């Protein structure tokens, strides 16, 4: 008896997906089991998993010559996601599964026949939906993720359950697509932070226009707390943004099985010992780093000067381009990385420079060296730089009501709506021609900016960044034109 079967799976390289036709031929000859079509070692190991899973699910593993082809054959296939498709194709080719089917099969097999979850189910299921494949068989843990892609998602706990579903003995119902997530409860509210009016204002501007912010101040003055309040004033994720951010989290294997779609903008806070790979991504195959996990949200770098300067400099490209391409021998991946940088640092090595109560013990050269750890090109990409001073005791005791995050968030949302009307999500994305069109300055503002460029030697990039911040300040004020005062505030908040 010989047979042939074809089952659809999906390969993943970075964010790139491609439908893979898993073809199995079972023919007479010496018993053997080969996989062709450029499998990597994880795919080749599928032979052992598939053999045991078929046997332990009560089926017979055909003692014949089995050839598996993963087509198209010219690209290397990675990972364990082909196990389920290979097993089902063997069962079909050997006649143990009676019907042909066109469903997408995504799952790793355990030796006892259980189906295990995969990374990156969301982009793979989306790909199948785009190609018109109506249903996907996935592990129970991946069901919500596959359903979020828009197609039917069948949660199969075991290989046996998958076969029973396909031949119609026990039909499984598709998983329900995940419902809208509840409004998150914020850890820190701006209203709980005493004083610090300028830093709060800068945070609001950063949230509205997606501008990069650095906070400088002595230890213990609330820089970290302020940064943690940022998520509470960020505008809600739009649907396409939520999908884009969730796809990256899916590929990184960081999806909550119950809530596969992100409900709030990501806020990533890697420790300052983070390596280049951790920050911008890497490895073989290349995985997304913190900059990509922060896509559509914020990347918070506490103790900025403690990060290795080489690591910080790798941020320059993603900050400018909004994405990062990681090239490795034979493979490369491009991940989105449009994030708002929020950083905090001490003013000097001892941390007390400028503190009225604790004298600084650093020499001027030490302070210079400390500040030189942040390279000029990186600082040039920082739009807002504020000082976070120590708050006097009398103010700390002051119990008067302060503005809550919800109020600030409404202003941010209103400003975002103005930006949306101009065709961009946030002012940080405005291109120079758009800036010229939307940032018409009054005569006196023009003079001010001209002098700023001349006297303070603003680079062309800094000039455009200042204009974008001024545009955001005007948007927050509900103003159509950029007034001199908006521009002055932007210049003042610039590094």
């Amino acid at each position: 008896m010989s047979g042939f079967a074809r089952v659809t799976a999906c390969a993943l390289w970075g964010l790139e997906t491609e439908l893979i036709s898993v073809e199995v031929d079972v023919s007479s000859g010496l018993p053997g089991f080969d996989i062709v079509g450029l499998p990597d070692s994880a795919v080749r190991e599928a032979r052992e998993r598939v053999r045991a899973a078929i046997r332990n699910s009560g089926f017979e593993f055909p003692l014949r010559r089995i050839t598996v082809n993963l087509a198209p054959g010219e690209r290397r296939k990675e990972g364990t996601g082909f196990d389920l498709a290979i097993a089902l194709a063997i069962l079909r080719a050997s006649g143990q599964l009676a019907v042909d089917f066109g469903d997408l099969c995504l799952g790793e097999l355990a030796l006892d026949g259980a189906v295990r979850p995969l990374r990156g189910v969301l982009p793979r299921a989306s790909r199948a939906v785009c190609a018109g494949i109506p249903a996907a068989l996935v592990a129970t843990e991946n069901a919500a993720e596959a359903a979020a892609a828009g197609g039917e998602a069948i949660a199969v706990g075991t290989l046996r359950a998958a076969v029973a579903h396909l031949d119609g003995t026990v039909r499984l119902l598709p998983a329900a697509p995940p419902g809208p997530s509840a409004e998150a409860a914020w850890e820190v509210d701006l209203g709980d932070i005493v004083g610090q009016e300028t830093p709060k204002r800068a945070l609001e501007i950063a949230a509205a226009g997606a501008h990069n912010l650095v906070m400088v101040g002595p230890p213990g003055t609330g820089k970290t707390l302020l940064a943690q309040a940022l998520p509470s004033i960020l505008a809600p994720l739009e649907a396409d943004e939520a999908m884009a951010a969730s796809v990256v989290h899916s590929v990184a294997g960081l999806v909550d099985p119950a809530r596969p779609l992100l409900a709030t903008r990501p806020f990533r806070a890697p420790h300052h010992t983070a390596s280049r790979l951790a920050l911008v991504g890497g490895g073989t195959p290349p995985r997304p780093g913190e900059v990509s996990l922060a896509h559509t949200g914020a990347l918070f770098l506490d103790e900025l000067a403690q990060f290795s300067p080489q690591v910080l400099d790798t941020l320059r490209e993603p900050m400018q381009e909004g994405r990062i391409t990681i090239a490795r021998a034979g493979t490369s991946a491009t991940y989105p990385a449009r994030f708002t940088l929020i950083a905090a640092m001490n003013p000097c090595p001892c941390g007390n420079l400028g503190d009225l109560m604790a004298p600084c013990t650093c020499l001027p050269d030490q302070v210079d060296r400390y500040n030189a750890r942040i390279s000029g090109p990186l600082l040039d990409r920082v739009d807002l730089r504020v000082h976070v001073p120590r708050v006097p005791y009398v103010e700390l005791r002051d119990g008067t009501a302060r503005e809550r995050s919800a109020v600030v968030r409404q202003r941010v949302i209103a400003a975002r709506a103005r930006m949306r009307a101009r065709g961009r999500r946030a002012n940080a994305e405005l291109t120079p021609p758009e800036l010229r069109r939307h940032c018409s300055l009054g005569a006196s503002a023009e003079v001010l900016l001209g002098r700023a460029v001349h006297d303070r030697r603003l680079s062309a990039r800094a000039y455009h960044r200042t204009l974008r911040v001024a545009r955001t300040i005007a948007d927050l004020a509900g103003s159509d034109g950029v007034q001199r005062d908006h521009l002055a505030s932007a210049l003042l908040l610039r590094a």
Partner: protein
Amino acid sequence: MSVLHRSDPRYPPRLLDLAAPPEPLWWEGDVTLLSREGIAIVGTRRMTPYGDRVAREIAIACALAGVVVVSGLAQGIDSAAHAAALDARGDTVAVLGEGLAAFDPHGRRRRLAARLRDRGCLVSQYEPLFPAQGWMFAKRNATIAALARAVVVVEAPHGSGALITAAAARAVGRDVYAVPGPLGSAASAGANELIATGGARALTGPEALGLHAVPPVRDEVLERLAAGPLSIDALGASSDRIVELLMAGRITRLADGRLARR
């Protein structure tokens, strides 16, 4: 780099007041500055923005009056004085505590040294390759004191090398002034004590040195910044006004984001 012996007519006569005048002197730049009238501005390396401002103001007054600013090109007050004098197109002399070739600072002092070679004068009583050692600075300080007609101590904590310069200046009969600082400010403790014990006269302004004062600018914002730098919140002026002052170079933003007078 050149050598200056006592027999040379360009050797500054004021140095002969010292018990052991340096012999020889190595120099780079404009050697004639050594014999001109000079005022020494010395102080701590760990200066505060207050010391920075006062050192600059005195150096600018010297530059406008054509008086040479003498100092030691250390970090802090010394560098502030040299830089302000050069910025105001004045003359300035740096007396190093190590050999001229051994002096190899980084960053802003390297740039400052290059400007001094170009438009001022660098002097050392040590052989060019002699590296800095602790005992050498006291002799250097005496040279600074002797080169000037008056010594101004701007911010010196207890035990500061600037106090050695003051003592050396008294020994050779130079006028010694100290800039009074805020009580409780460690950076001014030594200078205040110098005034209290009669070791120096309190400096009330550049007029006391026989220089014309830089006319004070009547400005509410600048006056609020006179005591020290403030954050934008604490200053409470409009952004427009602050940017105006920044552009005019009247105030500057410190590395920590606060605003200070220049």
